[in-house]
């Protein structure tokens, strides 16, 4: 491999140097993940669609990240306190929803159903991606609570879902914070 790098350098092979540069830059950025708090926060913001702006988020989308971090969400028709979310995350009393494949916990403390699940990557997909978005016809209003953890970092976001027209829904971020 070293010979390969030297060869590219000596031959002034611009296409090869460009590809190598992209690979090395991406690899270096990823290697900084376990080491730097600010890099961790940048990655976690990306997973919650909470980067400073869309272009900043879009640039990061080429960084490989399958099955990354501990991503969990809760969907409820009523606001949930942090205590309730903590309680739900520690319990394992879940029932598979036969219609949608979502994992459901029927709450014992408050009189509403709370949908919760662990997600492989991008927890916000439960609101935006097709296989979950189809459930909006049954649950057009509610609150999404997202939590993503990586080592010592934890990001939490709350989104409000509201029906717009008969075929349109509105997703609004209420807050995003680090712990």
């Amino acid at each position, binding site marked *: 491999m070293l010979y390969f790098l030297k060869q590219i350098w000596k031959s002034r092979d611009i*296409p090869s140097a*460009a590809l190598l540069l992209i690979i090395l830059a991406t690899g270096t950025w990823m290697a900084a993940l376990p080491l730097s708090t600010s890099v961790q926060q940048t990655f976690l913001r990306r997973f919650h669609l909470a980067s400073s702006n869309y272009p900043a988020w879009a640039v990061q989308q*080429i960084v490989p*990240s*399958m099955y990354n971090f501990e991503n969990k969400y809760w969907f409820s028709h009523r606001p949930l306190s942090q205590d309730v979310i903590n309680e739900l995350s520690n319990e394992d009393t879940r029932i598979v929803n036969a219609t949608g494949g979502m994992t459901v916990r029927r709450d014992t403390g408050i009189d509403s159903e709370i949908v919760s*699940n662990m997600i492989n990557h991008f927890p916000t997909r439960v609101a935006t991606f097709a296989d979950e978005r*189809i459930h909006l016809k049954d649950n057009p209003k509610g609150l999404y609570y997202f939590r993503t953890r*990586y080592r010592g970092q934890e990001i939490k976001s709350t989104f409000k879902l509201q029906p717009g027209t008969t075929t349109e829904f509105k997703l*609004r971020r209420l807050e995003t914070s680090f712990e």
Partner: protein
Amino acid sequence: MSSTTFAGSATLTGPERLPKPGVPQVIVLYRVVVGFIIASLLWKCSFYPAVYTVYTQFRMEDDFFPRLMSSTLVLVALLLTPVALGMIAMFVRRKWFMITQATVTAICMFGMCIHQGSYNDVTFLTCFWVSLWCIWYTIKIGSPEKELISQAKKFAILIISLIFFGGTIGKLTPGYWSGQVLYEIYFIDRDFWIFNLLRANFEPETLRDISTYYSRMIILAESACALLWLLPSKIAGGVAMTVLLGIVVFSNEQLLSVMFCLVGLTIVALHDPKPVSVASPATT
């Protein structure tokens, strides 16, 4: 690879004509990779009509995504353009077309990575990286064949290593090391042969223990694959192929859409370059 393989392909004329010796295997490798990108994009095609229906019937207005990148029509165009160009590329040898096809595919895959309806699907991320390889490769077509194939193998392994590195670095967290994340994603209720088998034969407590070993094994396998670039291309290709197929067999067949294009690169890494042949009368 026999040069007659290309009988029926579009022929080149004028100054753009590529040198005959060495063209076939170089182009075959390119077409193999493009074919696997198409396979990646079409693997879940039975799912697409339902996706289209949901996206047109349940539009999601979200301040974060620009309107263009929430449009279902844009999503369809970003998906189908690379498939159409890739299929044409199976029959065309013109260098400018191959470069265009690779570049448009990379742009469309990046578009899929930043579209509201597809940003979460890693299929488009792996296809994007493989398309970058295709851009580089098609630009280099025409340079000495032996050197090109040697470099192509190294870049193929570098990209595969990078993808695995991305997988493992994000799992270096207690939830994965303890197995809890994969326990909740796969072991509790995922309908797949290995998890159905385990649930049928073990108590929940034992399943939880198995998930710990399963999760750690994945972290170790991905970490090892992130270092594939240190190995000779052929060995690295063999290891990568085994791990890629292993992930599909033991995790989730839907992951084939993510893996197919990487299998294309692995085939490049495993390829034994043939000696440069002299054009035969049968050559187009």
